[in-house]
C-alpha cells in the first residue's frame, strides 16, 4: 500500500511538472509583457532595462528553473500588471469562483437528479418529454450564448436581475461572500444557473439512463413481485444503485465546473479567478497565468489522486499489483 502511494504521488508530481513545462513554453507565444507594462512614450532603453530586471532575457531553462523554484514553495512572484503577489490576488478572487462553482454544483445535483429520476419513471409523460427537449438546449448551446440570452431576457427586458458583477459583498476574515446580501444573492442567480445548466442536463441524462437500466434488472422485478410499494422500489432500491456511478462522475465534474467558470465569469463580469486569468492573458501577465494553470492542475491531480487511493482501498488487487512491482 505504501509503495503504491509513493508511486502515485511521484506520478502526480511528474504530471504537474510537465503541465508547468508546457504552460511555460506556451507563454513565449502569448506576446510581449513589457509592451503592456509601459506607455507609448517609454524609451527603448527603459523597456530593455525592465525586461532585464524581470529576467525575461534569461535563457529558457533558467527562466523555467527560477519559476519551478518559486512555485515549489508557492511563490509565483508579483503580477506584472497589479504589482502585488500573485498568491494574494488568487486568494482575493477565489471566494467568488468557489461560491459560484459550489452553488452551481448544488443546483445541478439537486435539480438534475430529481429530473433524471422523473424522466426515467414517467418516460412517456408530457413533462418528461419537455425536460428532454430542454436538456438538448442545455447540452448543445455554448455557455456564453446562454449567458447573453439570460442577460437579455432577465436583465434587459424583464429587469428582474442584475446583468453583471457580484453585488454587495460582506467580508468575513479572508473570505468575501455575496450570500449575505440581497443584491449579492440576486447577482448570483444568473451566472449560477448559466454555469449549472450544462452539468444539470448531463446529470439528468446520466441518472435517467442508469435508472432505466436498473429498472429492468431482476431484483427490481422481484421487488415488485414481492408487492413492495412503487415508491419504495423506485427510491429505496433503484435510485440507490443508480447513484453510485453518478456520484463518481459528479466528483470528477467538479473540477470541470471551475474550468467552465472562466466563460461564465467573463460574460457576467464575475470577479473570480477565471476573470483574473482571462485578463492576465490579454495583458500578458505571465505570473498570474502560470499560477492559475498550476492551481487548476493541482486541483485536477488531487481529485484523481483521491479517486485512485479510494479505488485502492476498494479493490485490493491494485495494491497487490503495485506492491509486487516494487518488490
Amino acid at each position, binding site marked *: 500500500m505504501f509503495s503504491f502511494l509513493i508511486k502515485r504521488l511521484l506520478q502526480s508530481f511528474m504530471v504537474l511538472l510537465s503541465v508547468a513545462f508546457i504552460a511555460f513554453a506556451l507563454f513565449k*507565444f*502569448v*506576446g*510581449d509583457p*513589457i*509592451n*503592456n*507594462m*509601459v*506607455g*507609448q*512614450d*517609454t*524609451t*527603448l*532603453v*527603459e*523597456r*530593455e532595462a*525592465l*525586461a532585464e*530586471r*524581470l529576467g525575461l532575457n534569461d535563457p529558457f531553462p533558467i527562466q523555467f528553473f527560477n519559476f519551478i523554484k518559486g512555485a515549489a514553495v508557492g511563490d509565483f512572484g*508579483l503580477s*506584472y*500588471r*497589479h*504589482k*502585488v*503577489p500573485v498568491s494574494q490576488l488568487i486568494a*482575493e478572487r477565489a471566494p467568488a469562483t468557489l461560491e459560484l462553482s459550489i452553488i452551481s454544483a448544488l443546483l445541478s445535483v439537486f435539480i438534475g437528479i430529481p429530473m433524471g429520476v422523473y424522466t426515467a419513471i414517467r418516460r412517456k409523460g408530457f413533462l418528461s418529454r419537455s425536460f428532454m427537449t430542454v436538456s438538448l438546449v442545455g447540452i448543445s448551446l455554448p455557455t456564453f450564448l446562454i449567458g*447573453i440570452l439570460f*442577460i*437579455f431576457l432577465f*436583465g*434587459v427586458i424583464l*429587469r428582474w436581475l*442584475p*446583468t*453583471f*458583477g*457580484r453585488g454587495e459583498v460582506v467580508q468575513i476574515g479572508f473570505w468575501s461572500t455575496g450570500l449575505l446580501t440581497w443584491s449579492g444573492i440576486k447577482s448570483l442567480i444568473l451566472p449560477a444557473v448559466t454555469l449549472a445548466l450544462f452539468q444539470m442536463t448531463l446529470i439528468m441524462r446520466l441518472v435517467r439512463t442508469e435508472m432505466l437500466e436498473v429498472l429492468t434488472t431482476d431484483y427490481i422485478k422481484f421487488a415488485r413481485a414481492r408487492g413492495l410499494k412503487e415508491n419504495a422500489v423506485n427510491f429505496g432500491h433503484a435510485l440507490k444503485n443508480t447513484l453510485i456511478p453518478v456520484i463518481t462522475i459528479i466528483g470528477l465534474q467538479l473540477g470541470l465546473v471551475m474550468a467552465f467558470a472562466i466563460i461564465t465569469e*467573463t*460574460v*457576467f*463580469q464575475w*470577479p473570480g479567478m477565471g*476573470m*483574473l486569468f*482571462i*485578463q492576465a*492573458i*490579454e*495583458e*500578458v501577465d505571465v505570473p498570474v497565468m502560470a499560477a492559475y494553470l498550476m492551481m487548476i492542475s493541482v486541483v485536477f491531480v488531487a481529485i484523481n489522486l483521491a479517486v485512485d487511493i479510494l479505488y485502492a482501498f476498494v479493490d485490493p488487487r491494485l495494491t497487490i499489483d503495485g506492491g509486487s512491482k516494487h518488490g
Partner: protein
Amino acid sequence: MTIMKKMLTTVAAASMILGAGLAEANTLKFAFQGDAQSLDPHGLNETFTLGFLSNVYEGLTMLDENIKVIPGLATSWEVTSPTTIVFKLREGVKFHNGNSFNADDVIFSWKRTLSEGSDQKVRGGMVVDIKKIDDLTVEVHTDGPQPLMPSEWAWIYMMDKEWSEENGAGSAANVKEESANGYSLNHANGTGPFEVVSRQPDVKTVFKRSENHWNENIISNVTDVIFTPVKQAATRTAALISGELDMVYPIPVQDWSRLDSEDGVSALKGAEARTIFLGMDQFRDELLYSNVKGKNPLKDVRVRLAMAHALDLEVIKKKIMRGAATPTGLMIAPQVNGFNPEYNTPYTYDPELSRKLLAEAGYPDGFEITIDCPNNRYVNDEKICIAAASMMAKIGIKMKVLAQPKAKYFAKVLAQNNYDTSMYLLGWTPGSMDVHNVLGSLIACQNAEKNVGLFNLGNYCNARVDELTDLIQVETDADKRQAYVDEAMQIVKDEVGYLPIHQQPLSWGVSDKITVNQRADNAFDFRYVVFK
C-alpha cells in the same frame, strides 16, 4: 382660494427643496472595458489610467474639456530664460488628507517620476532641477529649451510628500520588489475634486466628492462615483440599457442603432484625436513578407503613391465605421496643436492612376505583401485591414492580412522585435496633444539613442523632416513654428511616408439622466458630469 394657492406654492416649494435635497446624492455608475493599471499616478503613462486618475490627482497644468492647457495647481508660469520656467503655485490647495500643497510637493513629485518603477521618466526627464523659491514659487530648469514642458506636465500629477513617505510610497510602484510597493497602488491622496473611498483592482473603485476642492466653479453635481470594469461589450451595453449603469464605454459601433432605439439611453459619438494609418517598411533592402526578392518595392515613392491612391477612405468610413470616422490626409487630428486644415486633404481615390504608377515603377502585375493588423486595439481595426486589402487587389497588389490580438501584434511589430513587419496598421494619439510628439515618435528617423522614431516602424526617413522636428521642439514663436510644421507635413505627404486613413470615432453609451463632456482623448472627466 388664496389660502389654497399659498398652500400649494408652499408644498411646491417644499417639494422642490426636498427634491434638491434628494438630488444632492448623485451616484454616477460607469464602466470601461478595462481597469486603470493602478492608482499610482506615475506607474503607467497611458490615456485611460491617467484620465481616470485626473479626477483624483492634478498637475501644475491641466486640460480643459477641449484638451486645451489651462492652469491647474500652478496659477501662472513664466519663461524667464530659455531653460528656466517659474511656476506660481495656487494658494490654499489641500490634499484629501488635509495637508497643504506646496513647493516641496512639486519637487518630491518630480523626483518620484524619475524613480525606478516610474513610467513618466520621459516627462520627468525634461527637467534637470527644480528650485524652491518660496512655498508657492518654484523655478524649473529644463534640459535645453522645453517650451512644451508646461503642457506635457499636465500629466505629471502632484503627490503629497508627507503622505507618500509615511505610507512607503516615496518611489513609484515597482514590479520587481514587493517591499517598495505599498500604498499608492490602491490608495490615493491627491488634490482633485474626487477622493478614492475604496478599490479592488479589476473589480470596483468607489469615489466620493471631495469637500474642500479649490475650484468652486466645477459644474458637476456628482457626489459619489462607482466604477466597475466590464470586459464584454454585450454585457456593458446590457447594463446600460437596463439602467444599472449611467455611462459605459466603448460601445461597438454596430450597437449604436440599438442604443438609439432604446428609451433613456443614447450613443455619444465624437471624433477621437486618434489617427489611424497604414505604415510601410521603407528601410529594408528586401521586404520580409513579400514575393518581390532582391529589392524593396516600398522604397519607390511611386509604389507608395499608388497605394495611397488605391485606398477609398469614403468607403471605409461608410461601410466599416457607419459614417462616423473622419477621413484624414494628415497624421494629426484637428484637436492636436499644429493641425492645419489646408494640409488635411486625403489623397484622391484614383485606382487608374495607381495602376499607371505601379506599371511605371516596374510592377504592372502588382506584387504580394502581408499587412500586420491588431484585432482588438482600435475601432474595427481588422475590418479596416481587410477592406484595404480588397482595395489593393483592384490595382493588382495581393495583400494578405495577418490580424492578431494586440498583445501578439505589438510583440511582433515593435522595436523590441526588430520591427518584424512589411506593412502595418497603427493608431496614435499624441499624449501631449502637440504635433511634436507625432513627429518625434512616428515620423523622425529611427534613433534609439535620441529616443526618436521609436514607433516609426517602417523607418520613413528624411533629413529635413528630422531637422524641422528639432526646430519645432524649441520654437516658441507660433507662426514660425506652424511654418515648420507645414513644411514637414508637406514633405511627408509628397513622399507618402504614411497612408493616413481616418480619425476613429469615440463611442460612449450615456444615460439620458446625465450630461457628460466627451473629451477627444477619450478621458472621462467627472468634473463635467451633471445629473439633470
